[in-house]
Structures are given as structure tokens and as C-alpha cells.
């Protein structure tokens, strides 16, 4: 397969002089010897191309460039989107290439959100129809152009592999030759979409287009942006949230070789140098006194005390069915309270942003999930009209929700305001972990009654941050955060009397944001844990118990049945080894997972095996789906085992991978994912694995030890065998 390495580094694209050694010693050695590298974006003008919509660009040579409205962060969208487009376009898939979309909300807004955003596992769901229509209409126009040329009926022509053929006359013509003629064909309003049974690309486990350049160092992430005469900076924000710089002694820092500037910018200090090493060393040499402000005393204990108090209040009713008051008086009543900690994203690629500010213009190089927001943020800080800000998006070295925020752009532009020429701002890992936008702490309180072995009533109250209220204020209506209640208001079980309440409780000072799995991560955890506890009360097998309440959810029931089979559910296990199950319909994908784990005498947990069955509707690229679920499961297991950001004296106590532990090769179990064949519309897949694995592991521990953990991460002490 021929893949254009269009996101890879290219040399001298801007004709930058390579100041190599050949130029001799006279050239100042401070001059960097690298070439410019930046990702491809579609050219501003589409002249001479067939560009029927925002997504498709065909030139006279027949090269097809597809413009990606959603950004690639590992989820495979730079393969699945081209597959969908090429499927309907009948393009030769081996010859398509893709480019990052520029900021342009008219052309590239996510239909689910009306802004340019990659998140919430909805790239395929949101663009499934628009991309198919875009591909189909372009194909129809090309066919129409050929038919006109041949004076035949368009219906008598076929398109395949970038060629239109009129079988009756044996004539055929390539897309490249049709560029001009097709450009004047009107765009059809309702193009004929292909029948899924005729799909030749969709549903095949095709090789990803973005991976070859990720094996040889050529892929360019935001952190790899390189510009001539670029300087490098790193920063330290006040360790206490909301604090400011009081005083800086930079005498030692300025003596560090390669340090150019020390900037004191209100809430952070930055050091600008010839390279990151100089900047980093310079930063370490600064003696900064912080004005820690009012948050200097905040600790995790206070935050939890506040949240627990808030969760006692009445919430706003987000959903009600049946008669909850009556239902709660019937049968045996049980209570459960579940708590989720703050979590950092810890994307492998630390936060970074490169900025070149010139009078009247600003150019940005970064990898972001919200390119238009990056543009408007930069415009605001630089006090420029939005159109004067150019943003080059890049491959993302891990998003997980962190790059839904533009804070790294804001600080980088503020630094650039004091720097002559382009400056790349890279955060240290410590800064990245201590100044994240954290997955909020949540507390969920459930009261339920059991009658005749089934759940008669279920009163569920969620307390925690309303991320939406900050991130997308118009979406926050009537006191309900649709993210915080996601998967709670639409839980899958047949429960006659149901109520879901939400209490907005913002932690003081700690910024909160979206984290892989978003709202469902919290709610599926609480629901699936409590369901397991109720199953035990009812004296039922956890899978049977769930199956009995999935009458209106045949897809999830089928997934449960299959995972029971694949995981050897019910086969005997040694002492202190257990299997735990979790089922969820979140993100429009139906997933059932079984984790098998062992708990040793000291309470340490050892993972043995994971089986997951996923019905996500039409699987555009089944191999990517498997990979996403595998990876998501690992992501969730790290969080369940160890993930917690704690606060003391207003600051985050974790700082790097030595104290923010991530699952590693030698403790990852075998993970088998089974993708169910389905003709339903595609569901979301990027986050579901992270959501499903946490309760499944917790339930495995419950099965192994009888200890019903109710907060994450796992408390080893609670699991140790008491002496």
C-alpha cells in the first residue's frame, strides 16, 4: 500500500538554510541545524482541484487528499475516516492521503457539538452520515461528469478504484481527468448511499495509515514542531492552585549556559533558552517565592468532607420513572456509596505549544482536540482578530480529554509576547501532572430495593463537578450536567421505579475536566458495583442477575452471554481468585467484560485475564476497535489499581511516573476482545474500555475476597488477610 507520508517531517519545506557543518565554523554554532517540520494542512485555495465539500480534494493527477475534521490521537480516525470517505467515493484506497483540518467551524464542526472537537467517543457516530454523504455526492458528481462527456446516462456508469467506467462501451476515465468537469456539476442534495452489503472497505481490518511514520521517527507531534531560529521554553506555575509569583531571584538561572530570558508572568515563571535543557536547568536554578493565596491550606481530606456533605443535599432530578417513593418501601432495602478520586491524564506527550507572534499575526503549532478553541484562545491573549491566528494541528501523543483544554496555548502565547521569534513551550512531566485539569472527584449514593430477586426501586444521586457548565455553558441547563449523569439516566436494566438526582459540587481550587470515559466512567462504576452487591444479596450469580433485567436491551444481553462463554464463567478458581463482570451500553456501544484477578494475602492485586465482548454496530475497522478496547481496558485498570491525585497544602502531591503509577508490560494480563458482527449504526469505542474495566476488576476482587470496595483506587489494606 502506498501511503503518503504527509504528516512526516520534510526537510527544508520553507527553504530554511541548513546550517550544517559544511558551512564551516564561521556560522555561529548557536544556529540550530534542523530543518523546519510541520504537518500538512490543505492549501488555502482549492483552485485547480475538485473540492465538492470540506473533506475531499482531488487534483488533476488523481491524487486524493482527504481533510480530517477529527484529529488522530491513537483512536484510528485517520484510517476509519478515509475508509468511510473512500468507500462512498469509490476511491482507490491505496492512493488516498489525508491532511489535518484547519480551524473552520463552518466546514468541520462536530455535528454532535456544533464546534470543532474530538472527544466523547463520537467521531464515527457524528461523522458517519456526513462523510458518507460527502463521499457519495462527490462520486455522483464525478460519474455525472464522465457521463456528460460520453453522452450516456449516469446510471449506466460505475465507479471503482478512482475510475469511472461505462461498461457498455468499454470506456473508462480516471478521477483526475474529471476534476474540471466535475467541479461544475451541481452538488446533489440526496446522493445515493451504498448498501452496506456492498461495502468493500468498511468492516475490513485494514492497516492503519498513520502507523508507518510512527515506526521510524518521522511522525510529527506538536512537541516536534521545529522552526528556524526557534527558542525553547519551559515553565513553572504556582504549585498552589490560584497562587501567584511573589518574588524571583534569577541570578543563578541567568548564569546557566543557553538561558536567554527569565519571564515572570503573574501566575507562572518561564525560562527561555537555546534548547529545552537550558530552559529546564534555568528553571531549576530559579529561586521563586510564591504568593500562595487563599488555597494554600486545601487538602484532599477537606475536599472529601465537603463532597460528602454536599451529597447529603437534595439534588436536581435528572430522571424519574415509576413511583420511587413507593418502590423504596417494597422488599429489602440496601444502600451503597461510591467514590472516585481526582485523576491526571498523564498523556505520554507532555503539554506543549509552539507560537510565533509577529506584529498583527500569530501562528500556532500544537496537537489539540479543539483546534478552533485554540485559535480563539490565542486571538484573545494576543489581542488579534481570530482570522489572524493560524493553527497547525498535529498528531496527538495521547489526548484522553486533556487536549480539550487550551490552557497550554494561553500560557505559550503569553510567553511568546516577550520572545523575539518563534518559541516552543514544553511542560516538564512534573508540571504536566501538577497542573492538569483533573477528572473530578465524584460521590454516588444509591438506595435500592430487592423484591423477588429483582430490583424494585433504584434511587441514585450523583455529586460532583459540572464540567459542562465550564466547558460548554449553554449545555448546562436546569442544573443538570448531561455528562455527569450520562449512563445513569439511561442505565440498561429493567427497573420499574427509578430516580436519578444530580448535586453540583465543585471542589475548591482544583480545576476539573474530561477524562477518558467521562461521565459514564463514574456512573458505570457505581451501578455495576452495586448491581454485583445486590446480586449477592439476592443469592444470584452476577451474570444471571443482570440477564434477568435486560429485557429491553438484547444487544447487551447477547454481549453478556458471549463474554460468559469466552471467560469460562462459572469454572472453579483457586482461593482468593475471582471473576468479575461489568456490562454497559455507554457511548452507543454494548460491552460486557470479565476480569479475572487474584488478591494475595497482603492485599496486592494481580491481574490474570480479561475478556471483553463489544457490539458497536457496524465496525468500520474491527482491528482498531479491538485495539481501542484493549488499550482502554489497560487505561482503566491503571486507574483502578493506583490512580489517584491527592492534594495537600493546596498542591498536587504526585509529580511523575514514579508516584503516578501506570500499568506496565509485566503486569498486563492477557486481554481478549471479541467484536460482535452487527448491522446497526456504529457506536463509540475510544472510551468504553476504560469504563468497563474498573467495575469488572472491582467485582473480581469482590468475588475473590468478599470485600466490597466502594472507592477507587483499590485499597490494599482493606484486602489484606487480617492477622
Amino acid at each position, binding site marked *: 500500500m502506498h501511503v503518503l507520508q504527509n504528516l512526516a517531517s520534510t526537510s527544508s519545506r520553507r527553504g530554511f538554510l541548513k546550517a550544517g557543518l559544511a558551512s564551516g565554523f564561521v556560522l555561529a554554532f548557536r544556529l540550530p541545524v534542523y530543518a523546519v517540520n510541520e504537518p500538512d494542512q490543505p492549501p488555502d485555495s482549492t483552485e485547480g482541484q475538485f473540492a465538492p465539500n470540506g473533506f475531499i480534494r482531488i487534483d488533476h493527477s488523481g491524487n486524493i487528499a482527504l481533510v480530517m475534521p477529527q484529529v488522530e490521537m491513537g483512536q484510528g480516525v485517520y484510517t476509519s475516516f478515509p475508509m468511510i470517505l473512500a468507500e462512498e467515493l469509490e476511491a482507490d484506497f491505496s492512493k488516498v492521503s489525508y491532511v489535518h483540518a484547519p480551524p473552520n467551524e463552518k466546514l468541520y464542526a462536530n455535528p454532535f457539538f456544533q464546534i470543532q472537537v474530538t472527544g466523547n467517543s463520537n467521531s464515527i457516530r457524528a461523522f458517519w452520515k456526513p462523510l458518507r454523504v460527502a463521499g457519495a455526492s462527490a462520486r455522483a458528481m464525478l460519474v455525472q461528469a464522465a457521463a456528460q462527456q460520453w453522452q450516456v446516462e449516469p446510471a449506466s456508469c460505475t465507479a471503482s478504484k478512482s475510475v469511472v467506467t461505462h461498461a457498455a462501451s468499454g470506456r473508462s476515465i480516471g478521477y483526475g481527468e474529471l476534476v474540471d468537469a466535475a467541479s461544475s456539476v451541481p452538488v446533489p442534495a440526496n446522493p445515493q448511499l451504498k448498501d452496506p452489503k456492498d461495502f468493500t472497505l468498511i468492516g475490513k481490518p485494514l492497516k492503519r495509515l498513520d502507523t508507518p511514520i510512527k515506526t521510524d521517527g518521522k511522525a510529527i507531534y506538536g512537541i516536534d514542531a521545529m522552526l528556524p531560529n526557534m527558542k525553547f521554553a519551559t515553565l513553572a506555575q504556582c504549585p498552589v492552585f490560584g497562587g501567584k509569583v511573589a518574588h524571583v531571584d534569577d541570578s543563578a538561572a541567568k548564569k546557566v549556559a543557553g538561558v536567554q530570558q527569565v519571564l515572570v508572568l503573574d501566575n507562572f515563571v518561564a525560562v527561555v533558552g537555546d534548547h529545552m535543557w537550558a530552559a529546564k536547568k534555568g528553571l531549576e536554578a530559579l529561586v521563586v517565592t510564591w504568593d500562595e493565596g487563599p488555597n494554600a491550606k486545601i487538602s484532599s481530606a477537606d475536599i472529601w468532607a465537603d463532597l460528602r456533605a454536599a451529597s447529603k443535599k437534595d439534588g436536581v432530578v435528572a430522571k424519574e420513572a415509576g413511583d420511587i417513593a413507593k418502590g423504596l418501601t417494597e422488599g429489602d432495602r440496601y444502600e451503597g456509596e461510591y467514590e472516585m478520586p481526582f485523576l491526571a491524564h498523564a498523556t505520554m506527550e507532555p503539554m506543549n505549544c509552539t507560537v510565533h507572534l509577529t506584529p498583527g499575526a500569530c501562528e500556532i503549532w500544537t496537537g489539540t482536540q479543539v483546534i478552533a478553541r485554540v485559535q480563539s484562545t490565542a486571538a484573545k491573549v494576543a489581542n488579534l482578530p481570530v482570522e489572524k491566528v493560524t493553527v497547525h494541528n498535529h498528531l496527538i501523543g495521547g489526548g484522553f480529554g486533556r487536549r480539550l483544554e487550551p490552557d497550554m496555548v494561553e500560557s505559550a502565547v503569553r510567553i511568546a509576547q516577550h520572545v523575539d521569534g518563534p518559541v516552543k513551550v514544553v511542560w516538564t512531566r512534573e508540571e504536566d501532572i501538577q497542573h492538569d485539569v483533573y477528572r473530578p472527584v465524584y460521590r454516588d449514593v444509591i438506595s435500592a430495593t430487592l423484591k423477588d430477586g429483582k430490583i424494585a426501586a433504584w434511587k441514585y444521586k450523583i455529586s460532583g463537578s459540572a464540567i459542562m457548565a465550564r466547558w460548554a455553558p449553554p449545555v448546562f441547563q436546569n442544573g443538570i450536567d448531561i455528562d455527569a449523569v450520562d449512563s445513569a439516566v439511561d442505565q440498561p436494566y429493567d427497573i420499574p421505579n427509578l430516580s436519578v438526582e444530580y448535586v453540583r459540587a465543585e471542589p475548591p481550587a482544583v480545576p476539573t475536566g474530561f477524562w477518558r470515559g467521562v461521565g459514564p466512567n463514574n456512573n458505570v462504576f457505581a451501578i455495576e458495583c452495586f448491581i454485583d452487591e445486590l446480586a449477592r444479596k439476592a443469592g444470584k450469580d452476577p451474570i444471571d442477575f443482570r440477564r434477568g433485567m435486560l429485557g429491553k436491551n438484547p444487544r447487551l444481553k447477547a454481549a453478556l452471554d458471549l463474554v460468559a462463554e469466552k471467560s469460562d464463567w462459572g469454572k472453579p478458581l483457586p482461593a482468593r481468585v475471582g471473576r468479575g463482570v461489568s456490562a454497559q451500553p455507554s457511548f452507543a456501544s454494548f460491552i460486557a467484560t470479565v476480569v479475572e484477578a487474584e488478591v494475595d494475602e497482603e492485599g496486592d492485586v494481580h491481574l490474570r485475564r480479561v475478556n471483553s465482548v463489544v457490539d458497536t454496530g457496524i465496525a468500520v475497522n474491527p482491528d482498531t476497535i479491538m485495539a481501542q478496547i484493549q488499550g482502554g481496558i489497560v487505561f482503566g485498570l491503571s486507574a483502578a489499581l493506583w490512580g489517584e491525585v491527592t492534594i495537600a497544602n493546596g498542591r498536587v502531591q*504526585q509529580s511523575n511516573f514514579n*508516584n503516578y*503509577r501506570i500499568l506496565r508490560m509485566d503486569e498486563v494480563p492477557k486481554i481478549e476482545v471479541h467484536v460482535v458482527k452487527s448491522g446497526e449504526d456504529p457506536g463509540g469505542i475510544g472510551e468504553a474500555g476504560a469504563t468497563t474495566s474498573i467495575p469488572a476488576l472491582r467485582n473480581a476482587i469482590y468475588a475473590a475476597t468478599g470485600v466490597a470496595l466502594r472507592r477507587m483506587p483499590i485499597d490494599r489494606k482493606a484486602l489484606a488477610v487480617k492477622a
Partner: protein
Amino acid sequence: MRKILLVIVVILILAAAAVWHIFIYGPMAFASGSTVALADYHGANPTGVPASLANADLIKRGKYLTRAADCLVCHTKPGGDRFAGGLAIPLPFGALYSTNITSDKETGIGNYSDAEFLNAVQRGIRRDGTRLYPAMPYTSYTYITDADALAIKAYLFSLPAVHQENRVDTLAFPFNQRWSMAFWSFFLSANARFAPNSGQSPEWNRGAYLAEALAHCGECHTPRNLAFALDNRKKFAGALTAGWHAYNITPDKGSGIGAWSDDQVAAYLSQGHAANHGTAAGPMAEAVDEGMSMMPPEDIHALVTYLRSVPAVASSEPATLAPPAPEAPKAGVVADALGKKVFEQACASCHSWSGESAISPFATITGARAINDPAATNVAQIVISGTQRHTPDGVVSMPSFGSTFSDKEIAAVVNYVTARFGSEKSAVTAKEIADLRKQTSY
């Protein structure tokens, strides 16, 4: 109550018993030759600052002496203001907190007169007349000359005053009875200024002053007797202090530093690292970084001369140090799956499977005393707390893993590395790791 009184009586009797022992045997008693009052000594002045600073102003000289006496390390809490105190020193019967020694008048020592300052430093008596606990090493500082102590005071008073209340100690009865320290001091602290030994070289005398009066090496490296006083008959033979093992630094060939070259000793003192002998961590790292790293070569050599002169005492550590382990993970010690797991996750990247770091000599563990110590106290400590070294080339650090790994995992990796890289495998338990966590200053 009666029980407690009994405890005090027993302590006092024990102290009295130890008294004679001690009085006859001070920290420099091992040396031949006779001592003379400083004023009567004819050699180069062994006290004060090195020649290069002889003409410096009082504050500069005070700064040198303050660093040599290592005041900062105890009188600053992690992340706190310099000299403002607050470091917790955990003891089996509660915690002591170091005090604010900035010139703040309300919370620091801003109101101390010269005489009051000397009384505190040399005799362990505070301005209000209460007694200091010997965690403040006034039993060593007593040898500091008045002039030097007052130079230290001048330096401290030249720094910004920090208003920070002292924290209240949490010692349990009877240990919270500060008056009892009067007896302790009376019996166990010499209250005598440094007296040069005319039978030893000027270099030796300078080394003795640096080691005994200022750097107070013995406070960590000399074992203590039942009355908590230094047992100078086993001078520098190694002891456990604040959860760290301060190793035998006598010239014993096997368990001490007799096999080290003078250059290696000098390098260790001035850089906290000597080729093939590992890297200082914990309190020794702080003593190097905050103190000895700024000493000129003549002072370092004086220290080496002095160290070389103390009697060799054998201690229980293995005499032979293990050679590098094989490079292949499967060769060498392979037992202990959990220990291997932690090592391959968190340690191998820096320390290599051979123990000879491919990254930095500072990270080479082959040959280090700590790794060859089957008690493995320091290995466990450094895994728990990490270390941050401030070298002339910048910061060299090992991250802490105490909050990441469980007691069981830490015990396993400690036993794995002592087996793989040391001469004898340790047998640390999870319970011991839990206890060790409680002994470190914070």
C-alpha cells in the same frame, strides 16, 4: 506513675554509670599526644575559616562555618523557608521539631544576645533557660570557638527573618520533661572548647576541629550507648540514625573505609560520590551538598587525615563487596519474581541489570556499601524516599517510590537488589518497611 518514676531512675542510673566511661573517653581521646588550650597552641590555627577566607568579612566567614556545621539541613523543613525550622525528627516516643533560627524576633532567635546564643550552641540551654534535646548536637558544637559560633550568629542574622511559629514537640512523658536534660548534659556533655593536640600535625588538628566541632560526624557515625551518648570507644564504627545507616568510616579494611584511596575518600566527602563506592544519599547527601561540597581541598584533606587516624574498628558488614552482576536479566540472581518485577519496572532503566549504570556513575550501585549491607536499611530508605543531590553540575536525583509501591513490593525489590548486586541477600519484611517509613525525618 510509680512505673514512670522508676523508668527515670533507671535512666539516671544508667547515665551515671556511663558517665565515667565517657568522661575518660571523649571524641578525640583516641589520639596520642597531649592537648593544649587553643591560645597556647603554636601551630596554624585549626579553628575558623580556611586561608582563602581569612580576610573575608564576618558574614562570609559565618556562612562558611554555618555550612560546615550543617545547620541548614535540620533547621529547614522540606519545601520550607531556609533556617525557619519545622523539620520533624521522629523518635520512638514522639516527634521533635527543629526550631526557627532566623533572626525573627517573635518566632526565631532575633532576641538572642551573643551570650545566649553561645549558651544554646555550646551548652544546649535556650534563652528561656529550658534545655535542648541532644538531637541538637551541642555535645559536638560545644567544641566550636566563641568567635566561630558568633560568626555563625552574624551570618544567620544577616539573612531575612522568617516569621514561622515553632511546632510543639509530641514527645510522651517522661521524655517531654526537658528539665531532665540538665542531668543528661551535666553528665554527658563536655562543655569544653576545642583543645588542639600538640602531638599531632596542624592538618590533623584542623581535621579534628572540622569533624568534631563543626561537621559533627560522630553524631551519626558513632554508635550510642544506653544513655544515648556517643560510645567513642567504637568511634565512627557506624550507627543507625534517623532511619538511615551511617556506615563504618574507620580505617578498618573490610567493614570500614580502609580499602579506599585517599582520593576516593576526598571525592566522597566533597562530591558525595566515589568511583566504585557508590553515591551518598539521605543525611550524608545533605551534609555533602549543603556543607562539605564547598570546602576547599585543604579542608577536605584535613578531614581525610583525621579520618585516617582514628582506630580501625570492625563492624558486622560483609568485608567483601560484590562485583558487577551479569548483564542478562536471567543470569545472576533470578529468584524472587516480585522483586524482579519491581526492578524491571522502576530500577533497571537507570541502574542496569549489571548494577553499573549505563547512564551515570552516580547511579552505579555495584560496590556501594549500602547494597552490600544485608540489613539493607539504606537501600530501603532510598527506594522509599529517593534522593536529590545538588552537584556542581546540577541536580542528580533518584525519584522516590515510597508512595507507589506497597511495603511488600519495596521489601521484595530491596531483597532482590541486595541479592543481585550485593555480597549477601537481605531478608527485609514488609513490616520492617512499614516501620522504616516512620523513622525518617519529614
